[in-house]
């Protein structure tokens, strides 16, 4: 096992004294569960070959998107890479429009032009994503710059993977954000892999957040499997951004259970130890939080059952919506090449 769960390196933000109200805690739990169930449903139907789109599921990493977005206003803007589903849903993106996009329908959130790697919903601040690794990082910094110069109220959050920090553009964007003290939070979801390539063949053994820190950006590494840790760290960073104190960098460590793309676990192929996946499943963001909430009597079996039911019905009707929606026509091809 190359990358065991290693809490020693994490900075802790959430103290057990902090008291959140039940509604908030339930909301976090529900959002993670909802993302998990949606991803599972996508995975279970992917073999039907009707979602003709490359998918990058977020199972195992739900806590980062949910914890971060819980610290945001609806007007704040989120940006991400190819692994879009979690951020899109946590930011409040329309599920039906997402499913339509995956099913290549005209009413998809990108009108079937973007596919799974280009989900967005500008009405809730899910502003943009890019299928080019690190491609949306400069975009996010530019939006933060606009906010600062125009004295807009929104801040930006840039979600990126560990491999995105190998692209020079990330360091260029980080430098600019630090130089101008822009209202932005970088969330680096470190899951140790870039497709099948482990961190060790891509970066020397130095922590990613330490590098960001050296650029003058307050940076931490946190336990990305714990939604309250993520939330607390994000709150601090969001506060910093909103107050004009500049950017922050959060390295959130969590693990993806399934393959880089597609719907199955490909660990057996040899690039990682299947035991590593099992190991991380023991630190599953949802069951960990479940146990925590139950131990604190904040969640009951009945409530969970009810939740599952509601989510199930929402998911089914979103799939139904997508499947029964029309495909775009040829006339779509040449529209919006230019904006008016």
């Amino acid at each position, binding site marked *: 096992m190359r990358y065991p769960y290693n809490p020693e390196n994490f900075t802790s933000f959430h103290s057990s004294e902090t008291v959140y109200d039940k509604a908030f805690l339930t909301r976090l739990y529900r959002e993670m569960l909802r993302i998990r169930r949606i991803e599972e449903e996508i995975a279970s139907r992917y073999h039907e070959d009707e979602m003709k789109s490359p998918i990058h599921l977020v199972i195992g990493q739900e806590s980062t998107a949910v914890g971060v977005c819980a610290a945001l206003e609806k007007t704040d*803007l989120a940006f991400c890479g190819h692994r879009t589903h979690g951020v899109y849903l946590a930011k409040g993106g329309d599920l039906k429009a997402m499913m339509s996009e995956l099913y290549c329908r005209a009413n998809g959130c*990108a*009108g079937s*032009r*973007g596919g799974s790697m*280009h989900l*967005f919903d*500008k009405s809730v601040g899910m*502003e*943009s994503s*890019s299928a*080019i690794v690190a*491609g949306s*990082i*400069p*975009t*996010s*910094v*530019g*939006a*933060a*710059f*606009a*906010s600062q*110069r*125009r004295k807009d109220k929104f801040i930006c959050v840039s979600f990126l993977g560990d491999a995105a920090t190998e692209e*020079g*553009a990330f*360091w*260029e*964007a980080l*430098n*600019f954000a630090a*130089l101008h003290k822009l209202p932005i939070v970088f969330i680096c979801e470190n899951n140790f892999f870039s497709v099948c390539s482990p961190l060790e063949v891509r970066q020397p053994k130095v922590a990613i957040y330490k590098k960001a820190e050296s650029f003058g950006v307050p940076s931490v590494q946190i336990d990305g499997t714990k939604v309250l840790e993520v939330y607390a760290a994000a709150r601090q960073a969001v506060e910093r951004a909103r107050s004009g104190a500049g950017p922050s960098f959060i390295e959130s460590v969590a693990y993806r259970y399934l393959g880089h793309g597609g719907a199955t676990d490909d660990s057996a192929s040899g690039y990682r130890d299947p035991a590593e996946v099992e190991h991380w499943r023991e630190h599953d963001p949802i069951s960990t939080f479940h146990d925590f909430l139950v131990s604190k009597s904040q969640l009951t079996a009945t409530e969970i059952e009810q939740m599952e039911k509601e989510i199930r019905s929402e998911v089914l009707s979103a799939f139904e919506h997508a499947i029964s929606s029309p495909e775009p026509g040829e006339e779509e091809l040449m*529209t*919006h*090449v*230019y*904006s*008016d």
Partner: protein
Amino acid sequence: MPWAEALIASKAEEVEVGQEGRILSYVDALREALSLALDLDPNVFVLGQGVNDPRGMFGVTTGLHEEFGVERVFDTPLSEEGLTGICAGAALVGMRPVYLHNRPDFLLLAFNQIVSHASKFSWMDNGKGRVPLVIWSAIGRGWGSGAQHSQAIQGLLMGVPGLKIIMPSTPYDAKGLMLAAIADNNPTLIFEHRWSMRSKGHVPEGTYKVPIGKGVYRKRGTDLTVVGTSHALEVALEAMDELSPQGISADVIDLRTIKPLDEEIIFESLKKTGKILVVDTGWQMAGVCAEIGCLVAEKAFHDLKGPVRRIGLPDSHTPAGFSLEQYYYPNKEKMMGVIKEMVEK
């Protein structure tokens, strides 16, 4: 939108190729455009490595940061890829960045952001996003610019959907097209030429736009059509000046923008002359010359009375050395030679 309104209100928009107004230098015309835009629309900002230098960038930005503040006219780190994306992001949320570069060569660092991002947002967003971004750079030539500081890369970008590409050659057009570019809601590249920037000409005061995608006749004639932009067209005009006493006349068309391309004006002229010479400041192969040459062979074939000819740069690199450079760039004499050949046949 203060900006759009001001432009529409402007009568100057209707003015065609300036024959009146003050005489202004090319550089001053450009600076005036920037200054007007900054004044009109608080969403406009101007950035680039050196825009705040004492002499500004080639004089084009001189003093603007003093007039409008370093919040709106500012120097940048040397991070072309990152900054291009930053500009696209700012544009995506409604600002109107004008990003200036000394040389188009530096844009090669930013092709990922230009080609795979800025040009695609509007389309990929199904029309919900738009990118009113201007990227300006000045093609270098002479004095040892050499292979890495002289590349006229418009031909590499002409095929990319979603971009607009402008190549002015007069002070009037430089100002009017800069204003049009800033007012446009699409990622627009302006390739200036360092040698065109030495000229002076009539430039109206105030706001006016030269339409993007419209060429103009610089000369009228009957023997052939010469079409192109920027400094290459200026050399062609000189060649025609010399040839005119010999009784050779041509329609000389300054396209001013290469994307969108004004096909109509080319076809119109070709119908009359039957012969076409395409000139460009970039590599001849697979670029602007090739596109226009192929276009007429495809859509105006039956008007062609002889082979299409093109004059761009040979399939080699720009030499830094002075004497070698003289051989590299096609000059007036070379153009005259080709034109005579075309007319005589």
